[in-house]
Each structure stands twice: as structure tokens, then as C-alpha cells.
């Protein structure tokens, strides 16, 4: 599904006189369909940067990111060009960040339904599907018409997850998806991720919480001083 080869990232900061800061280096791994790879390491070790390089939010300094796309065939996302990355993001690759960023004053259910509408779903059906997913994530129906910006951190996090999984992407990148959730919500999220995994979605996740990681990860990759070590959870 995904093969990352010798991926590295450096940032050149012009404000600091062109100083070069290393994000991570020499990261390689393979990910099979339905496999969950956990990324661990201290904060600042480059975990989020690895996810962002795969998603295309960061431009890798070197290395390859081979993704087996359904639409485009095998494609190196590190070199594929903007249009190809956009097409892969549109339905095949999802990303859950730590923070929710949405247009103000859009109802929660509409935020979650939007990816379906973009894919051409009928509005009523998309909203019903979004409502069902939110319900499952313990966002009660009375909040579906409210604006996510007024929600608690944990609720916003679940909106973020709902939006990323509603189209069942084939590759899902998760950056601390359960960080601000209580135990029960965390278990619900893990349950949803497990279902996706069983249907073949591959995932790479950063989890703050060791128990959550052990509950779902098949393999673990530890980043230390910007480079990597393989292991089991």
C-alpha cells in the first residue's frame, strides 16, 4: 500500500539567516493493506513531520513515498506533482490533525458531510450518514446543528476524525487523534479505526497514550534523534 524509502526533512529558516534545522532523516518502512503502524518517540523527534511529508504538507528534502493509488497506480507522492497529490487526497488518503480548522458558522453535521458532497453524494443522504457517524462518536443529535468552534476540545477532535473517516480512505494518517478524549470516547474512536482497518484501510498513527497504541498498532517505529528504529508495540 505504502512504501517509504529513506525519507528526510530539513527546514531552512531564512529569518535565522538561512539556518538549516533537521526534522528527521533516513526513515524507511512498508505498510500493507489493513496494517497499523504506530510512530513513537519523544516530542520533537519528528513524528508529525513524517506524517506531513507523506501527506504533502511538508516537502521532503529527499526520499520516496510510493503509494499504491487506485486511480493513479503506483505513484511517488514526494515527486508526483500537485495535481496527483490532490487526487490522492480526494478520497484515498486522509489526515487527522491535532486541531480542527473549519469555516466558522457551519453546522457540525455539514462539516462532516462535506467530503461526501464533494464526492457527489446527494445532500440528504450525506447529512444522514454524517449524523449517524457523529452519533456513534457520542456527539449527541442536539449538537449536530451547532458550530464546532463552540465545542470542547474533545468534541472538536471527534469532528475532525469523523470528517477524515467518512469516505473510508485507503490510507489514514493520524496525529494524536485521541489526545483530548476521555476513556469512553477513546474506545469508540479505536473501535471505528479497527473497523476501517478490517476493511483494508492502512494507517500510520501517533498516539500519546501507550494503551491506545497497544490496542490497535501492529507495528511500531520509534524515532530517536531524528532517525528510526523498528519494533513491536
Amino acid at each position, binding site marked *: 500500500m505504502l512504501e517509504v524509502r529513506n525519507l528526510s526533512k530539513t527546514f531552512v529558516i531564512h*529569518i535565522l539567516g538561512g539556518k538549516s534545522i533537521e526534522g528527521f532523516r533516513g526513515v524507511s518502512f512498508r505498510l500493507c493493506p489493513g496494517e497499523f503502524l504506530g510512530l513513537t518517540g519523544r516530542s520533537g523527534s519528528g513524528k508529525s513531520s513524517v506524517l506531513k511529508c507523506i501527506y504533502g504538507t511538508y516537502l521532503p528534502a529527499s526520499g520516496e513515498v510510493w503509494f499504491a493509488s487506485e486511480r493513479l497506480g503506483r505513484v511517488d507522492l514526494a515527486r508526483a506533482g500537485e495535481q496527483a497529490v490532490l487526487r490522492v487526497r480526494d478520497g484515498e488518503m486522509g489526515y487527522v490533525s491535532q486541531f480542527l480548522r473549519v469555516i466558522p458558522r457551519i453546522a457540525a453535521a455539514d462539516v462532516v458531510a462535506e467530503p461526501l458532497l464533494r464526492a457527489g453524494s446527494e445532500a440528504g443522504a450525506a447529512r444522514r450518514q454524517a449524523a449517524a457517524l457523529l452519533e456513534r462518536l457520542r456527539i449527541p443529535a442536539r449538537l449536530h446543528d451547532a458550530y464546532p468552534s463552540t465545542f470542547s476540545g474533545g468534541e472538536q477532535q471527534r469532528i475532525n476524525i469523523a470528517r477524515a473517516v467518512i469516505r473510508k480512505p485507503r490510507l489514514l494518517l493520524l496525529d494524536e487523534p485521541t489526545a483530548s478524549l476521555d476513556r469512553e470516547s477513546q474506545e469508540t474512536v479505536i473501535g471505528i479505526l479497527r473497523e476501517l482497518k478490517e476493511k483494508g484501510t492502512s494507517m500510520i498513527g501517533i498516539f500519546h497514550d501507550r494503551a491506545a497504541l497497544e490496542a490497535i498498532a501492529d507495528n511500531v517505529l520509534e524515532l530517536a534523534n531524528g532517525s528510526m528504529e523498528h519494533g513491536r508495540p
Partner: protein
Amino acid sequence: MKPLLEIHGLTKLFGSGCGHCLPGGVSPEEGNRCGRCGTVVGCGDVSLMVYPGEVLGVVGESGSGKSTLVRLIHFELDATAGEIYLNNGKEDAARENLLMQSPFRRRQIRSRHMGIVYQNPWLGLRMQVSSGGNIAEKLLAAGWRNVSEIRKRAAFLLERTEIPVNRMDEPPANFSGGMQQRVQIAKALSNNPQVLLLDEVTTGLDLSVQARVLDLIRNLQRELAVAMIVVSHDLGVIRLLCQRTIVMRHGRVVESGLTDQVLEDPRHEYTQLLVSSQL
């Protein structure tokens, strides 16, 4: 996939130019004004593509050439050099550099295939003519002739942009800033344009109105799958609307990429400064 709009080497110099700065204006290192003859580079060697259904953002500080670029594409200014192609989707259509066409042909292309929304509604609307009349004017230019159909289309568009249809016969001068902006959007979309140009459309609106206009633009974009160029100095607006973004400075494109990449991993010195200056 073929690009819908293709621009190559688009250049606009304000001034006569001299031996020091011709052909393309002073070098980017010198800024945008020639020290010898005073010629200013409004737009220097700008190339870009817009794909069908795509929203392209243009950011940069005031004076960076964003609006000049939009006005060149809309044929409001005559380019000094460059090529613009608008692919109408027909494979066999002759590829014509629009900048080489007659003024009449360019007006025709603009009326039929382009829409524009300005920051200042006074530029896009006749304030004393009814809102319906403003839309009718654009439709007439695009070749519509049947009065009852024009009226129906105007009513439909005003409804879509949340202007009460019973106010269709009122002039925009009676409306609030947010409403005027929505009438402009209705007018710009009336001819089902291939490309919609939005020049700082939410700048100056208060926050609640801004959110509503942004939401409207996003919904219309999704429903109509119209390609857009969104000019804004507000990085938040760009993040919410655009898949790809170009960054301009001194009339030149200094960086381009996926919007999240440009905003989170900017490479050019100027983009880094711009992004780190955001509140």
C-alpha cells in the same frame, strides 16, 4: 487532465522602460521599480495553470501585483507580454492566445466565460440600477435575449445568493456591504463562467458577514464546480477556499504549491515572513 486556464510569461510594465530594465522590467532582486526610468513591474513573467473545478489562491502584501494579475486575466489592462489560453473543453478547439485577439473578441470571451467580484462593489455593480437589472446587463452581454428568461435567471441567482427575491428591483445602493457582495457574486455567476475571479471579496466585511460570504462561495463552488482564482491577503481565507496557492511579491510569483504546504512549509524567505506575521 487539461488545464482550463493557462498563463505563460504574463508581464505588465507601467512606464516606458529603458535600456536598463527592458524587456521584462527590473530584475526581482532590484524590486519592482526601475531606478533609472521609474518603470514599475505590475506583473513580471507570471505563469500559472488552473484546472477544471479548482480554486487557486493568490497571496501577497499590498502592491505585490495580485490585483494587476486578475485585471490582466479579465482584459481590463493590456499586457506588455505573455500568453493566456482558456480551454473550452473541446479537444478540437483552436488554441488561441487570448492576448492576441481583437478587443471585440476579448470582450466577448470575458462576457461569456468569465466572472469577476471586486473588493469594492462600486466597481462591479451599477449602484443605481436594480439588482435584477445588474444581472440582466451581464446576461445581455453574454448573448441572452429573452426577457422573461433573463428575469427568471436573475431571480434564481439572487435566491441562491440569499438576497430576498422581493428586493430584486431595488438598487444595490440600498443594500448593506455583505448584500452588495452577494449581488456581485450573483452577477458574476450569471453567465455560468468557466473561471470566476475573486479579488479580496471579503476584505472590509465584518467577521460574521465574512463567514457567510465565504460559506456561500464554497457551496456555490462545490455545486457548480466552477474554477476560481481567489486573491486575498488574508491567509485564513486562502486556507479555507483554495487547494493550491501562489505567493506574489514585486509582481513576481516567488512560491507556489499546495495551500497547506505553502502555509506550513514555506520555502521562500518572503513567504516565511508572510506566514510568520499572521496573527
